[in-house]
């Protein structure tokens, strides 16, 4: 009897340890980090990655406009079914921001959702998309980041309901939803392929335009087919060709000047997205439009 209790306790401890093991925060592999370190960063190309990846949309102060959007004070709140996430300060300030991070720590955060202290970041930070970015893009982005201003504003904590307030749980979420690669098959057309990279790896369109399943992961069988607005205000529209009947030219123009084909203007979070995409070369907006037109019907 005593022996049975002992065995049970041992099994329980092992199961717990296994649980801790599989939900631990795991950064990039040593080989990947070494490969990053061997690359030279180009800040000018990094700026294009910065706008394509939409960093400022979440991390700039909520009221910031123009070049003030490069002051990454954080503070924008994101309501969700799990509570309210608050974007942290990721400016170059060494204490309040990420100014004292290494390239490896930056890459672990952006591509694996792991903090320098080895904790999970919540997937409101779209690292599952950024995991698809090229190593060169991460190095370029970090080179650009070095020239961004420092803001001495403390990050505010997230306001999450139990059990989502336990970060360890993100490890289980990652088992289900991280590292799944692209959502759509590759394309032969160079513009469509570029658009796929922009939309799936950098601009993370799917985070809002793809519906989520019960565990808060993207339902890839309905990729970019529209979803409820996480803020509870209406719906984020579907982008499949049979859902969005704008021409490719109209989509590319909208991503630049913010006007729909009948000259209504974009609203909601898309305004901020367009501010970013308007800074990219025209060919990139044309590529995103080509990618959307190549999606399967919804």
């Amino acid at each position, binding site marked *: 009897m005593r022996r049975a209790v002992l065995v049970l306790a041992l099994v329980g401890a092992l199961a717990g340890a296994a649980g801790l093991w599989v939900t631990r925060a795991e950064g990039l592999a040593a080989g990947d980090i070494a490969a990053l370190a061997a690359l030279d960063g180009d800040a000018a190309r990094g700026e294009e990655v910065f706008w394509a990846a939409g960093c400022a949309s979440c991390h700039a102060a909520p009221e910031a406009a123009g070049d003030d959007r490069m002051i990454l004070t954080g503070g924008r709140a994101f309501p969700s079914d799990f509570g309210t996430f608050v974007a942290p300060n990721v400016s170059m300030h060494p204490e309040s921001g990420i100014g004292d991070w290494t390239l490896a720590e930056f890459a672990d955060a952006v591509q694996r959702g792991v903090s320098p202290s080895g904790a999970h970041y919540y997937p409101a930070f779209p690292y599952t998309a950024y995991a698809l970015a090229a190593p060169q893009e991460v190095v370029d982005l970090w080179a650009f980041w070095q020239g961004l201003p420092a803001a001495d504003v403390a990050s505010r904590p997230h306001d999450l309901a139990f059990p989502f307030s336990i970060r360890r749980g993100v490890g289980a979420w990652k088992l289900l939803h991280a590292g799944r690669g692209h959502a759509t098959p590759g394309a032969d057309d160079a513009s469509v392929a570029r658009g796929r990279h922009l939309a799936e790896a950098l601009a993370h369109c799917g985070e809002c335009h793809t519906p989520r399943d019960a565990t808060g992961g993207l339902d890839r069988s309905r990729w970019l087919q529209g979803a409820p607005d996480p803020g509870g*205000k*209406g719906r984020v529209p579907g982008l499949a060709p049979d859902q969005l009947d704008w021409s490719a030219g109209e989509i590319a123009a909208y991503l630049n000047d913010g006007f729909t084909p009948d*000259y209504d*203007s974009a609203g909601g979070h898309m305004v901020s997205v367009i501010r970013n995409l308007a800074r990219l070369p025209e060919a990139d907006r044309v590529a995103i439009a080509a990618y959307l037109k190549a999606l399967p019907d919804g």
Partner: protein
Amino acid sequence: MKLKTIALGTAVSMTVAAAAIAAAHENMPAQIVARHGLMTVISLNLGVVGDMARGRAEYDADAAKVAADNLAAVAGISQELLWPEGTSSDDREDSRALPKVWEDRAGFDAAWDDYGTAAAALAEVAADGSDALGGAMGALGKSCGNCHDTYRKPKD
């Protein structure tokens, strides 16, 4: 005979459409109708300059100037009478004006002023060619987007 039938059919369907619009507006406060009307005037005139800036229509300096002047003129209409209590998206199905319009009236008025500044700048350069038009359009688009981002409820 056939032509007559078509004409009659068109007339009937237009009457039906007009009746439907009237019905939709029947219980809509005049202020909301006026707000929507202002936005429609803006989008019509934006269509003229926007199509030229986007290369969908040939650039025509006179037409661009007329449309841009209209956009600037709309900005001169005071918003003071258009936003009575009880006409927000929380109060009515036919309004997409978020309660924030009333909670932050100073910010809302400043956003309308920003539109006026951008529209005046567009009118200034509208006759100077499609490139100048495109640049000023971008600034105008930002003023539309900034206000809609904050004060307008997304479509359902």
